[in-house]
């Protein structure tokens, strides 16, 4: 596969339209007694690449299908610009939908698949045969499949099928491109290649694109903004940095990245684990049980004279460094990433101090260290 070529053909027959936002207002969808979505509000900006991220059953695919018009919402509105799309039937909505298993027409060649949306137009609006052929050739070039136009879907690899499905969706100049688990059916290597390629394609074509994924790496790496969904409602909307660095809820903390949950108690302006004070470096107002989250790469590991003292219980290899499990209480262990140079062995006593953390109090309020520390960390991520 010639995947690495950075050059992409530009489709010159595209008409750039006036910017259009897609606004979702209080959207709900019930399947019988099951509430797939309850009251979702979301603004999709013109030209952005947006990820809908969530575990299975979180409602992300339902939301995508509702935008396409493939599911009728039980309540709420979907606005394409000023126009209420709920009143527009699917076939007139001009959305490009790429299905998880591509849904290519197996009895048609690649070229016929891509041309489908143009050939089914009413006679008055249908481009001429030559125009369709030219358009198909352009799109094949765009998705780097030139020369495969006479193949049948069964004769293509998974990644190639995916790109045919994309080209087919782009052929009708969609107002928005919707991708359902675009890399879900591919193996890990192809997935990574296609990710970079899709980013480039989006930059080139500029169509507003929404994709559904359960893979956080995919969402964080690819999207301009990420929408985290859980149980049919939105937990957080933000840039990948915002989502990763300042998760808005315990759910997002647990779902994104690898972190440890430490059940603590807040009292007297301090945070306590049993009778030990957790060294957070700032005062906390509040009272009662709370959840402290620390990412495994956000610990300072020192001698057992400072911080939370614990015993190393297991060591596994993780990339360049090692990941250890440190028992800091009865049946309470935290995972910590050790840098490459550091040597520990099972049974060692260590001191742990969180560099970055987030504390969720019982009333839902969240406490974090000063933003300065975050922006440094965010800077490092780039």
């Amino acid at each position: 596969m010639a995947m690495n070529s950075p050059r992409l053909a530009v489709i010159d027959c595209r008409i750039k339209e006036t910017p259009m936002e897609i606004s979702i207002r209080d959207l709900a969808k019930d399947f019988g007694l099951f509430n797939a979505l309850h009251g979702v509000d979301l603004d999709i900006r013109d030209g952005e690449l947006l990820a809908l991220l969530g575990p299975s059953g979180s409602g992300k695919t339902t939301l995508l299908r509702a935008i396409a018009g493939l599911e009728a919402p039980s309540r709420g509105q979907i606005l394409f610009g000023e126009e209420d799309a709920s009143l527009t039937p699917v076939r007139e909505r001009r959305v490009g939908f790429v299905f998880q298993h591509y849904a290519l027409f197996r009895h048609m060649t690649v070229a016929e698949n891509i041309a489908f949306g143009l050939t089914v137009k009413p006679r008055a609006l249908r481009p001429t045969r030559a125009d369709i052929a030219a358009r198909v050739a352009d799109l094949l070039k765009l998705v780097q499949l030139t020369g495969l136009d006479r193949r049948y879907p069964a004769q293509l690899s998974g990644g190639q099928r995916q790109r045919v499905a994309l080209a087919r969706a782009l052929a009708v100049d969609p107002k928005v491109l919707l991708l359902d688990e675009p890399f879900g059916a591919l193996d890990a290597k192809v997935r990574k290649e296609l990710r970079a390629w899709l980013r480039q394609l989006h930059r080139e074509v500029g169509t507003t694109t929404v994709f559904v994924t359960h893979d956080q790496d995919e969402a964080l790496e690819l999207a301009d903004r990420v929408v985290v969904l859980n149980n049919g409602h939105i937990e957080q909307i933000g840039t990948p940095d915002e989502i990763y660095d300042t998760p808005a809820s315990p759910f997002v903390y647990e779902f994104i990245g690898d972190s440890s949950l430490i059940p603590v108690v807040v009292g007297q302006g301090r945070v306590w684990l049993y009778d030990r004070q957790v060294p957070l470096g700032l005062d906390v107002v509040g009272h009662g049980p709370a959840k402290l989250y620390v990412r495994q790469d956000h610990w300072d590991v020192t001698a057992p004279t400072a911080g939370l003292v614990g015993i190393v219980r297991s060591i596994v290899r993780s990339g360049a460094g090692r990941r250890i499990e440190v028992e800091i209480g009865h049946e309470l262990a935290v995972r910590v990433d050790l840098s490459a140079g550091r040597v520990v062995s099972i049974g060692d006593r260590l001191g742990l101090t969180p560099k970055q953390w987030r504390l969720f109090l019982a009333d839902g309020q969240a406490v974090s260290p000063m933003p300065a520390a975050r922006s440094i960390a965010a800077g490092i991520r780039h």
Partner: protein
Amino acid sequence: MSEATLAAARVEADDVRTETRVARWIVIGISLLFLGLFLVLPLVVVFVEAFSKGLNTFLETFSDPDAQAAIRLTLTVAAIAVPANLVFGIAAAWAVTKFEFPGKNMLVTLIDLPFSVSPVVSGLVYVLLFGAQGLFGAYLKSHGIQVIFAVPGLVLATIFVTFPFIARELIPLMQDLGSSDEEAAMTLGAGGFTIFWRVTLPNVKWGLLYGVLLCNARAMGEFGAVSVVSGHIRGLTNTMPLHVEILYNEYNFVAAFAMASALATLALVTLAIKTALEWRYGDELAASRRH
């Protein structure tokens, strides 16, 4: 290691992988014996009996006007029943696989009814409905329409009996395919008819053809239900299977078997077409299932 021990090792490996050779041959033997005894032998007997008095006697059977009428009638009934069930089968499969509606499970169960009910009962139902003493009998008589003991009754009974073949072939296939192809076509701007004609139909064409072939074979060969509604009027309401029975009861064995051989030939031709299609389009069939 010597060659002998190598060979022994290979045999042992064979035994580990599959059943013992004896068990294998017993199973194959039983299958072949049954096939020979219950399928091949009767078929051979039909043709042997048909030609027992020579080719001329065989051909004479078909010059009889009653025999020709029976053949014509059988073809006519099939020509009406098969397209009718084609339409019904596609509609039912479409409804069951693409929509949710109350009574869906009921419909799926009822489609199988003609398979589970005795054909004689199916025939009787039509007599009770449309016969002279039947539910609609008086109405039909006053309008001069005869259903029972006439061609319409034969067609109705045949449609009833062959009802499940096409729907049964299509429903699992379409359930397996799902709706995403149709949904994709819809997002690309295609209308309902275009989607059916250009996406759904090509996807199910082989299953559909299978269903039509089986439906046709049964429509031509049906005896029980047709026998009840026919009235056995020679030259008018006798189909081929009924004609075979009449000839047989008149001890006209050669003619009966000649007619039967014609029916058997129809069945064999159906099988041959099916096999030929599988052989010719096997790749495409496999491809469309694999994808």
